[in-house]
């Protein structure tokens, strides 16, 4: 709301527009042009609280934001009108703060260091509202609000235009902004507007800014056909008189061109009520409507198209694979030879001497058991038949259970008597690095210090013919490799790992840290072919082919679609 006042050139006191001399210092006001000021700042006696009771229910942060927002608008108005700030008590807003904040603030006043960042910011905001224009106090909040406004303005200008602006150069948008805003932006950096998913859902502040600027529109539709949010927003009716409503909004933003204000004033005269009454009524109406208006509640709009496409694709994939699995025929496995890492592992297993001592590391989760069993079972069958002692350690929570299940299954399948050699369970170590370090320390311990207790973590010192690491992740295997090869370089380490770990573990084979490796169902198929023991992998192979080729088709289809449609990526500096 605006009021006309005469500001004393001597003491800056505010006087009624019809006053001839200053009420405070008695200086002459002749020739002083009236200035516009908001009501709230004009009257010292007026309650600071412009918010409706409902607004106090807002989260604290938004409440503070609004205070700051208000202050900023007022500040802009003051700057525009050239008026100096009025004096206000800095403590006024305290009555709206929660109890905890009062306590903290009290403490903050007493002990300077005890104030948190927010308290300092809130205090700064209060000072701003009270008329302290010290830039150092409020620039953080101010710039934030300004960034959001800028964001909202961009959006109001249209999603398409905003997109174009982003791609053509961000600096342009700031050219028409006031100098103080440029300074703030320079200090804090500009905030680029969010992209598609969030473009659909505007923030409360953006919505408010749009409302203020009279640009409230239907929310933009989401572009990509994914699940989007629709915003339910009631039309805002600030006043019966549209022009007056517009004027109210313009005044609040503090950017009203003088000419338009004059027009509004002219229209006001025709209403036949006093100016003050009208403005107060406007304030009340705006505030009430503003508070009662539906907030842009994000609602899920079921995007059937996107969901349907995904459902159809999933159905096609599963149907195709099911048909391949249960059609009755078995696929022929790819012949030829194993990759060098797989061949090295197979050679080691085949040439393993009778009476070998083995250490098995179980580092996979139950979800990967299906794949790991396909890969590990043939090797374990081959090696366990020659082993004289086997120990296993687990670095996954269910590793012990999985180890017992797999070893039992393999020994049953290869007709190895259960008690033909001891199987030691060294237990579960929640950290691969810890477990590996412990083992390696045990292997290398060459001296004992007096009075130190015997550590229970140390593993039996033993020379192993090989260590087999069964892992589902690259990093799990890597932790064991790194620690074992640093601290126990002479023990050959072999990997039986899932397909997702394979490509990243190859450098360890090349560097010689790992002696051999089988990775994924592709290698398992190769091994089954080499061993000439068709069955388990062969049964799955056709379905695997169908799934893999379907993915290739999808990737190619994606390329074709993107050739037709415009890519969504509009971000610079992106790869």
């Amino acid at each position: 709301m605006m009021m006309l006042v005469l500001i004393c050139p001597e003491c800056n006191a505010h006087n009624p527009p019809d006053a001839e001399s200053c009420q405070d210092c008695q200086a002459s006001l002749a020739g002083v042009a009236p200035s516009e000021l908001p009501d709230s700042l004009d009257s010292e006696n007026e309650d600071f609280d412009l918010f409706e009771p409902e607004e106090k229910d807002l989260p604290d942060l938004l409440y503070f934001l609004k205070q700051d927002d208000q202050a900023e608008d007022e500040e802009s108005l003051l700057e525009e009108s050239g008026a100096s700030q009025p004096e206000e008590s800095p403590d006024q807003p305290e009555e709206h703060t929660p109890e905890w904040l009062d306590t903290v603030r009290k403490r903050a006043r007493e002990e300077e260091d005890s104030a948190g960042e927010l308290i300092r910011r809130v205090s700064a905001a209060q000072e701003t509202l009270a008329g302290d224009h010290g830039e150092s106090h409020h620039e953080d909040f101010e710039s934030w609000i300004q960034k959001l406004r800028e964001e909202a303005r961009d959006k109001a200008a249209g999603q398409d235009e905003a997109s174009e602006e982003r791609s053509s150069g961000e600096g342009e948008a700031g050219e028409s902004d006031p100098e103080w805003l440029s300074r703030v932006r320079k200090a804090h950096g500009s905030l680029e507007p969010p992209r598609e998913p969030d473009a659909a859902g505007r923030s409360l502040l953006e919505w408010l800014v749009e409302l203020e600027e009279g640009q409230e529109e239907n929310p933009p539709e989401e572009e990509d056909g994914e699940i989007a949010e629709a915003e339910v927003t009631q039309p805002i009716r600030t006043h019966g008189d549209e022009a007056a409503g517009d004027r109210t909004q313009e005044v609040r933003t503090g950017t009203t061109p003088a000419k338009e204000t004059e027009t509004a004033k002219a229209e006001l005269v025709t209403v036949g009520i006093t100016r003050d009454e009208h403005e107060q009524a406007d304030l009340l109406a705006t505030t009430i409507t503003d508070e009662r208006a539906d907030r842009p509640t994000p609602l899920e709009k079921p995007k059937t198209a996107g969901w349907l496409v995904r459902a159809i694709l999933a159905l096609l994939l599963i149907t195709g694979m099911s048909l391949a699995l249960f059609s009755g025929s078995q696929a022929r496995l790819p012949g030829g030879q194993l990759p060098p890492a797989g061949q090295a592992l197979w050679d080691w297993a085949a040439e393993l001497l009778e009476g070998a001592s083995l250490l098995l590391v179980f580092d996979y989760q139950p979800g990967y058991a299906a794949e790991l069993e396909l890969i590990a079972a043939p090797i374990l069958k081959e090696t366990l038949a020659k082993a004289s002692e086997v120990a296993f350690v687990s670095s996954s929570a269910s590793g012990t259970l999985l180890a017992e299940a797999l070893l039992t299954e393999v020994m049953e399948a290869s007709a190895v008597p259960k008690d033909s050699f001891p199987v030691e369970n060294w237990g579960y170590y929640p950290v691969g690095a810890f477990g590996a370090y412990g083992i390696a320390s045990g292997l290398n311990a060459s001296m004992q210090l007096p009075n130190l207790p015997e550590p229970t973590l140390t593993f039996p010192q033993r020379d192993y013919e090989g260590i087999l690491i069964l892992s589902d992740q690259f990093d799990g295997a890597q932790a064991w490799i790194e620690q074992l090869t640093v601290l126990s370089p002479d023990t050959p380490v072999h990997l039986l790992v899932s397909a997702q770990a394979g490509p990243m573990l190859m450098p360890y084979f090349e560097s010689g840290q790992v002696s051999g490796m089988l990775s994924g169902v592709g290698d398992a198929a190769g091994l089954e072919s080499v061993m000439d023991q068709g069955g388990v992998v062969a049964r799955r192979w056709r379905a695997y082919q169908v799934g893999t080729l379907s993915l290739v088709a999808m990737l190619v289809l994606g390329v074709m679609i993107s050739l037709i449609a415009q890519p969504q990526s509009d971000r610079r500096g992106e790869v």
Partner: protein
Amino acid sequence: MNLNELIWGAVGFLLTVMALSYLIGDNFFFRLATHLFIGLTAGYLAVILINQIIWPHLVVPLATGTWTERLWLVIPLGLVLLLILSQIPKLSGLGKVPLAFLAGLTAAIAIGGAVFGTLIPQSRVVLDAFDPARWYEIPGQTWLRILDAAVMLLGTVGTLSYFHFGRKFKTGSKDEETQRPLLLEGLSKVGQVFIGITLGAVFAGIFSTALVALIDRLIFLGVFIIQLTGGM
């Protein structure tokens, strides 16, 4: 199919169907299966932690060890007590010492593992590729070995350049603020390609792993139905 197999088969079948129902959207059955899974895993893990960590490494030595050993155990026992007490908000400060112990341990493992486990061995591989003796190991493949070594050096250097944190020295526009200094920027373009190749290969591996899981579940469901309908 015996009774044991039938019971566990039915449990597995129901849980599989409930979990896979997520493919048509979040629903009651999916939530039921996942929450059952979360609770059971938490219970199992608690048992394992007590059974395999706390019991053998803390309780047993405390109960059966010599006085010297018990004296030494005062340290971990104290750390454990401080950690537990620190969960009371007003006593959260007590957690600093046990957590500092863990942080120091982690940091040292990070440093040792990174330098001696990765930096040194991986750098050596790059250098070894340039050993002229290796180029002539396999007759007829010398040119490929040289190409291989050159690509390895270029790719490794390019990838490392891609990760450079500092920006271009003189920046005129916001676009340039995303760029590295000139030479590194050029090398990073090469690095981008190699990173893309690596991520693509890893992605293929991950899909392969996930696909095997899908195949396993389809086989499990199909076989269970066939066994159930085709006579047990």
